[in-house]
């Protein structure tokens, strides 16, 4: 919202205020004055053209000598209307114009130019249209003082406050009178209301117009009528004020309706009385009913929209935009003025559905002050009489079903102080309420406050605490810490599990990523492991962010691609994030992706490359850290889409599936990329126990090695299982220490060497006893699995 401070001064005296300091005070009290615009551009001055001659080498350029006060500049100008003895706007070298255009010294077709003569469009004060362009540069009145600020002669000697309003103050601060109350409460001053008394003629509007309201969604409807208006340009002060507040001046009549909206916050609607006829019916629209609005668009209405009709057809969409069939034009003489209040929610929905937002709808949506509805219509008559030569008809037709019971809220001094953490006295609180112009009664240190209609946002005790507090000043609050029991906080639910995993993976050298939850349908369809129904957004902003992901793998692959493209070859990353399938199925996935080298030192020839077994080791390490030691197993899996069928496995805890690990299918990724994904929801279902100390075995152990030759497709875990079974409880540990393929064994065979550790917790084992056991293990494994040992 743009507030003109010179206009503001009509209602609250701020003539003695430093406007920048005042803006800070207002901001600190809670209405944010985001910027203070003063029309004053450095190096932009009034100039006097002393000489103007044609450029020797051009048919449209002029070479001018321009007096700018402290010097005379030679400036080349292409505008047709430049001429000697004219007062012009000069941007000198160094001047910064809108669009970040800096004026520099230049040479135009061999002639030096030290600045620019400006058109209004170049100052951002007019649109840059061909018509405006044709007007050429702006010529200032002759009395303009050379070297002074040219804005003073453009009606722009004003300071503008740009308000960044919170939604609760949209209603009262989007108009100058409402904002004046805010300024008055900050300064402790009074507000003066504008003149509204016109001199009506004898004719009454009631003789010429009938108004019917048959919907409760219009709680107030006032209509007056004026005749014989003369459509012309608005007076300068109205034009300037509208321009300064960011609205375009159209003609005196239309401008007056906008002027009043900026003054009272009450949008008015002007109908051409002759086009309208003599009746108004306010009702809900019929489904499918149509109206052509002022912007020449045909709008289809529904039963949820409020319309103003002439008894039959709609002439305006209430609170949003008028119809073209009843609008003011250059031939209008008689005007019906509407000043009404409609249901804010209905206006909001209609404007949203039609995607039609206007200055009026914005104000209706936030609720209007019914006290001003009548003032505004009277003020319109006053201004039309004064500036459009209107004859004002007497009387106002009024429909009014508004409950005017004032809102009353109570607050005690104690409550004020306990909520604010301040020590206000009764006098302090009184002063705040008086500055706010909130009438109150005081009963035993409890304030019973009648809330003015203009402050629709204030309704209860805590609101009053805020009003009193913000005016008293939050800067007076001295911070302290709440007096509470001492305790250490905890991670609730699975948060702690995630933090532990994260901590471990980072220690193991993996980098955490953070990617977007929303993905594209093509990404979504790529991975099919344990897939549910994907959630699609109702109205996505773009297709590539339309689906809530079920897996993080594709996001990590994107990170992989990005980094490869930027020359990063070694990629060891993980992410933990929520995933969703169906709206109520939430999971949290841990996803790891590894590619390239994990650890290296080139000159030493050390190189640990990411592969299946490295990733397997990393996840085993992590799961063991979490307490799953001895409960982890892997099972071959050849049917996870987009994973390598021969290098992928299911990860089990206690033989229950929690995720998968493997190599990404070469069709999806040519390079060797390994990944895993684990459902933390499933993992968390598997409880772990805390660490318990166990005495180490006092008796020595004996280690025996054996290599079995087996078919290529036999998995080592089968052999290990058999070794374990036949080894019994004296066999403490089995380690694989060699894998061999090649000469000496068959083509479809491999040899795996195991190191077996035997130990007893009760005694020292004899070597005979271990040899017997060891040989029995070999025999049993060979017989059971049909293997042979390799010598």
């Amino acid at each position, binding site marked *: 919202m743009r507030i003109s401070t010179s206009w503001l001064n009509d209602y609250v005296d701020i003539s003695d205020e430093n406007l920048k300091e005042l803006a800070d005070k207002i901001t600190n009290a809670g209405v944010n004055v985001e910027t203070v615009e003063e029309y004053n551009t450095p190096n932009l001055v009034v100039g006097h053209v002393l000489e103007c001659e044609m450029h020797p080498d051009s048919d449209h350029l002029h070479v001018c000598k321009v007096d700018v006060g402290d010097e005379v500049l030679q400036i080349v100008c292409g505008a047709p209307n430049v001429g000697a003895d004219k007062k012009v706007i000069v941007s000198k070298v160094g001047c910064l114009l809108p669009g970040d255009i800096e004026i520099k010294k230049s040479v135009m077709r061999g002639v030096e130019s030290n600045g620019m003569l400006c058109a209004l469009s170049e100052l951002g004060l007019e649109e840059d249209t061909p018509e405006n362009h044709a007007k050429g540069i702006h010529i200032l009145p002759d009395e303009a003082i050379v070297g002074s600020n040219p804005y003073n002669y453009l009606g722009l000697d004003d300071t503008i406050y740009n308000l960044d309003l919170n939604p609760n103050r949209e209603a009262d601060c989007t108009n100058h009178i409402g904002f004046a109350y805010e300024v008055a409460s900050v300064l402790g001053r009074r507000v003066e209301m504008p003149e509204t008394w016109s001199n009506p003629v004898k004719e009454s509007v009631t003789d010429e117009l009938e108004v019917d309201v048959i919907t409760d969604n219009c709680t107030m409807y006032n209509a007056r009528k004026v005749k014989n208006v003369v459509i012309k340009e608005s007076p300068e002060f109205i034009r300037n004020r509208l321009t300064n507040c960011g609205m375009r001046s159209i003609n005196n009549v239309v401008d007056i309706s906008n002027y009043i909206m900026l003054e009272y916050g009450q949008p008015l609607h002007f109908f051409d009385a002759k086009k309208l006829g003599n009746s108004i019916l306010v009702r809900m629209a019929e489904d499918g009913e149509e109206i052509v609005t002022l912007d020449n668009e045909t709008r289809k209405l529904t039963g949820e929209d409020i319309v103003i009709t002439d008894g039959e057809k709609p002439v305006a969409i209430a609170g949003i935009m008028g119809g073209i069939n009843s609008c003011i034009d250059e031939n209008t003489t008689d005007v019906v003025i509407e000043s009404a209040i409609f249901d804010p929610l209905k206006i909001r929905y209609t404007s949203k559905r039609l995607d039609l937002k206007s200055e009026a709808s914005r104000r209706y949506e936030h609720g209007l002050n019914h006290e001003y509805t009548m003032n505004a219509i009277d003020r319109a008559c006053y201004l039309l009489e004064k500036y459009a030569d209107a004859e004002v008809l007497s009387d106002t037709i009024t429909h009014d079903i508004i409950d005017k019971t004032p809102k009353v809220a109570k607050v005690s001094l104690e409550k004020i102080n306990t909520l604010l953490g301040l020590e206000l006295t009764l006098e302090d609180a009184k002063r705040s309420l008086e500055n706010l112009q909130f009438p109150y009664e005081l009963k035993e240190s409890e304030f019973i406050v009648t809330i003015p209609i203009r402050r629709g*946002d204030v309704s209860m005790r805590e609101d009053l605490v805020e009003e009193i507090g913000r005016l008293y000043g939050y800067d007076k609050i001295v911070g302290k810490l709440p007096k509470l029991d001492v305790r250490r906080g905890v991670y609730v639910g699975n948060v702690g599990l995630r933090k532990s995993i994260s901590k471990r993976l980072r220690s193991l050298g993996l980098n955490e990523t953070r990617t977007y939850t929303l993905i594209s349908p093509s990404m979504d369809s790529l991975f099919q492991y344990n897939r549910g129904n994907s959630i699609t957004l109702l109205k996505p902003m773009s297709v590539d962010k339309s689906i809530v992901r079920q897996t993080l793998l594709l996001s990590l692959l994107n990170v992989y691609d990005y980094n490869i493209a930027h020359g990063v070859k070694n990629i060891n990353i993980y992410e933990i994030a929520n995933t969703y399938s169906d709206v109520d199925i939430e999971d949290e996935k841990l996803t790891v992706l590894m590619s390239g080298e994990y650890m290296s030192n080139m000159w030493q020839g050390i190189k640990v490359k990411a592969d299946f077994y490295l990733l397997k080791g990393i996840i085993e390490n992590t799961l063991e850290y979490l307490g799953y030691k001895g409960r982890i197993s892997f099972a071959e899996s050849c049917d996870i889409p987009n994973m390598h069928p021969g290098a992928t496995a299911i990860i089990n805890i206690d033989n229950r599936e929690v995720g998968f690990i493997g190599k990404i299918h070469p069709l999806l990724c040519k390079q060797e990329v390994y990944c895993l994904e684990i459902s933390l929801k499933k993992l968390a279902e598997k409880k772990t126990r805390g660490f318990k100390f166990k005495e180490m075995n006092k008796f020595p152990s004996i280690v025996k090695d054996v290599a079995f030759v087996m078919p290529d497709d036999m998995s080592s875990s089968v052999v290990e299982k058999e070794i374990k079974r036949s080894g019994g409880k004296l066999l403490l540990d089995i380690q694989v220490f060699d894998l061999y393929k090649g000469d000496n064994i068959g083509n479809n065979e491999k040899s795996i060497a195991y190191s077996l550790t035997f130990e007893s917790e009760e005694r020292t084992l004899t070597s005979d006893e271990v040899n017997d056991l060891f040989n029995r293990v070999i025999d049993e494994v060979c017989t059971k699995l049909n293997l042979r040992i390799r010598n």
Partner: protein
Amino acid sequence: MKEKVEKIKVELKASLEGNISIQDLANIKAEYLGKKGKITELSNQLKDLSNEEKKEFGKSLNEIKTYAISLIDEKSKSIEEAILNEKLEKEKIDISLPGVTVKNGAPSMIEGLIESLEELFLSMGYDVVEGPEVEKDLYNFELLNLPKGHPARDAQDTFYIKDEEILLRSQTSPVQIRTMLSNEDKSSIRIICPGKTYRRDDDDATHTHQFTQMEGLLIDKGISLADLKGTLDIIAKYLFGEKTETRFRSSFYPFTEPSVEFDVSCHACSGKGCPICKHTGWITVGGAGMVHPKVLTNCGYNPDIVSGFAFGFGIERLAMLKYGVTDARTFYTNDLRVNPDRREV
């Protein structure tokens, strides 16, 4: 006899001079002290002597034996020392060559900042609570005093999923609602809730459609804005240094009353004014306020008995300020060349 002893002495000494190997030494040892060694042979001759001579000769024989052993031992030690020195000399390495690259995993900038803030809050007795990102309109808006059609909903343009009842949460506040509702005995609450949030914003330098918030909620008897200010002071100093100051500006949120925005004095210019703080000396960090009585009532708390404060801030914004990141999208590109691989805060 005596002459023989003397001769051996001289010979032995001579043979041990100079550079000899450990093998040479072993040979020398055998030559003198071995079974057929010179000294052993001499002692074999002992039995042929008279008692008187035995006595005298035996003594000098012992002397030479002791002498020979100590001389050889000494030489042995010096040879071993020389060998060790040579070995150490050979083993000298160029310590300036690069070490093995042991990768250090790092958190994302956002997670790193969240974790360091969590550390602070855990120590102050706040629990860390998370909640669903696919959320009900009821928790994301309605119970937070944002009924359907409330204009303040415009500020949070939301991704809806189903019938405008299910959405991607636009703030982490629903976690506060869930915590209050599930606290059956309506006892005091001290939580922070960090997490991902979503709004229909086009991605640009200061907005991303997905971003991260951290909110805090404290409910107890007699909690005031002054308690809030003191708490936020601690956060500000923790993040931006001991000299950082905090200020409140009146603001509006539907779920707090009174509501404030909290600014911190600019860490870059110490409040003097610079481009980072747009020459104001202050940087807006987040929003806060006293929990709205309607929100308390909605969640079963009695606003006449308890009060509470809530605060929230965007982690991306904080990280931009703290790490000097100028484009919020940076947090989501995951460029591994950027590695905040160090202990933070």
